[in-house]
């Protein structure tokens, strides 16, 4: 290791040798950085799961533009708009087709007596082009009264039921006083939004939600004509439709607004953001402590090096070298332990907590930056190394 670093730096890796010389301190520092990494990874993991589940329903849909009420903050919040907007929209140039989308929550009692909630989507089954390619082929089967597709990731759903459904079987269940028959599965994953999801025809939806009417869907999905920019159509719709209580957004904009809302306006998002901040702070303090004690302990050696003619860049180099060593050696265990905890979290909560490469790289770069910052603060102590005091 020391040889390798010598080659890399073109000088003796003093920082590395110095850090590893006192084993106890080195391991404490590495453990500290790893712990800070762990904190940050866990917060980001849960935040990522929150984001994934916020936009998960979008994956079931295939549309370019979504018309929503201003009452709902996200796709799955309550809020209805008049179906008349759909007919008005169909008259706008560039709009190819439109369909209403109904959304509601259904309680579902599991075999063990516990109750979960199913986020239910009601769609026009004669327009499968508005649903994702994995769902579209089976959508027409939902024209059978009181049938639904059930999310295979539904929390608490017995494996036997899922297997039965996947092999073409059926599953009859009670929900809110109605009997529904699941005739197939889809793979969405409820995450934070609900315990599971369900798709049914708009007709079935209106039967199980008697208070809803066909004239007031939650959203209207629009597909545009090929070759016309989505933004252009959004602008035309803006001009053509009455503006009261109506939001017109491209699907992408709607999804990213939902994410922004969850991250900055909802307490969960803020709490996780704060957790990340705390993790970074813990890391900064630990690394600063270790590096500044290390500088203080070696003032005599540094003073000797100063007397020999080493300049300030050399000393800064040592401290930054130490910072980078701590970042790298702390990140590795932090990363692997986090992977383990992610797996644990997935199996316990069913949340879509996943490690992705960009997060790992981001956290690693952040660790490097935080360690370097701590190092930069610690170098202020270098000024105390006075070679005149050596004799």
């Amino acid at each position: 290791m020391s040889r390798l670093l010598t080659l890399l730096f073109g000088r003796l890796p003093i920082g590395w040798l110095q850090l590893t010389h006192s084993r106890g301190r080195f391991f404490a520092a590495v453990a500290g950085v790893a712990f800070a990494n762990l904190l940050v990874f866990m917060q980001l993991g849960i935040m990522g799961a929150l984001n994934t589940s916020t936009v998960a329903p979008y994956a079931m849909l295939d549309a370019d533009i979504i018309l929503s009420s201003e009452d709902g903050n996200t796709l799955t919040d309550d809020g209805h708009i008049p179906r008349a907007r759909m007919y008005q929209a169909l008259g706008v140039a560039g709009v190819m087709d439109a369909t209403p989308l109904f959304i509601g929550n259904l309680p579902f009692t599991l075999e063990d007596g516990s109750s979960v909630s199913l986020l239910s989507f009601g769609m026009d089954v004669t327009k499968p082009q508005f649903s994702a390619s994995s769902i579209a082929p089976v959508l027409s089967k939902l024209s059978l009264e009181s049938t639904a597709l059930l999310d295979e990731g539904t929390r608490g759903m017995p494996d036997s039921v899922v297997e039965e459904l996947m092999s073409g079987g059926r599953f009859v269940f009670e929900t809110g006083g109605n009997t529904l028959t699941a005739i197939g599965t889809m793979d969405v994953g409820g995450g934070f939004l609900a315990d599971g999801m369900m798709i049914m025809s708009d007709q079935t939806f209106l039967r199980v939600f008697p208070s809803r009417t066909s004239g007031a869907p939650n959203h209207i999905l629009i597909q545009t004509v090929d070759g016309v920019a989505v933004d252009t159509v959004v602008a035309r719709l803006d001009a053509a439709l009455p503006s009261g209580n109506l939001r017109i957004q491209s699907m992408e904009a709607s999804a990213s607004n939902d994410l922004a809302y969850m991250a900055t306006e909802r307490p969960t998002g803020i709490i996780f953001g704060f957790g990340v901040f705390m993790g970074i702070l813990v890391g900064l303090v630990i690394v600063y402590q270790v590096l500044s004690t290390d500088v203080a302990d070696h003032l005599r050696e540094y003073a000797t090096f100063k007397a020999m003619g080493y300049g300030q860049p050399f000393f800064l180099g040592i401290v930054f070298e130490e910072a980078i060593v701590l970042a790298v050696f702390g990140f590795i265990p932090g990363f692997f332990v986090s992977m383990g905890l992610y797996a644990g979290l997935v199996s316990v909560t069913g949340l879509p907590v996943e490690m992705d490469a960009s997060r790992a790289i981001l956290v690693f770069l952040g660790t490097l930056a935080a360690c370097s910052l701590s190092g930069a603060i610690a170098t202020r102590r270098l000024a105390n190394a006075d070679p005149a005091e050596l004799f």
Partner: protein
Amino acid sequence: MNDAVISTRNLDHFFGTGDARKQAIFDINLEIARGSLTILMGPSGSGKTTLLTLIGCLRDVKDGQVHVLGHELNGASEAVLVGLRRRLGFIFQAHNLHESLTATQNVTMGLQVHGHGDAVKQRKAAHHVLDLLGLADRRDYLPASLSGGQKQRVAVARALVSNPEIILADEPTAALDKESGHTVVQMLKSLGKARGTTTVMVTHDPRILEMADRIITLEDGRVISDELQ
């Protein structure tokens, strides 16, 4: 006197400020010839170390002039001072070795200050000097497993390895046994002959006095005697 590598004119030095201001060096005028071995003597507190640190660019010269290797130190920039320090070799009373570096690595530090060279060559050079000082079998030891005398010899090797033009030593033989103290001074003396290396050394060791070219005695910050041998 253009052969003088060190010269001082009207050199004073004060410690402290205000009421606590105290003069430690009074009007010192010296010229030290290239290749010579000069010994500084004097009672404790007479200013020997202070004079050495002034010459060695470790303390700022504020009153009077000090000329070292063609540079005036009074008012010199930090860059000039750092550059000069690289041409000097210091041997301190304490060894000041880096505890995390082996003997060879400590000595290598004396070379790397001149730039990042060929690591293999540097190791060879370090081994050569360590061998000369009788440490061939201690090359890869950490300071913690060396005796006091061995550590001091590693420190000597570190100062000598880069062939400095001037060696400044403050009681370097105090921690050495009789024989290795003699070896070290003998080395310094022959370096003076062979390469023109100039040595200024503070010592009370009577066995070394005989080997000096010149003995300067200080008292209360002034030169009270200056004898050529």
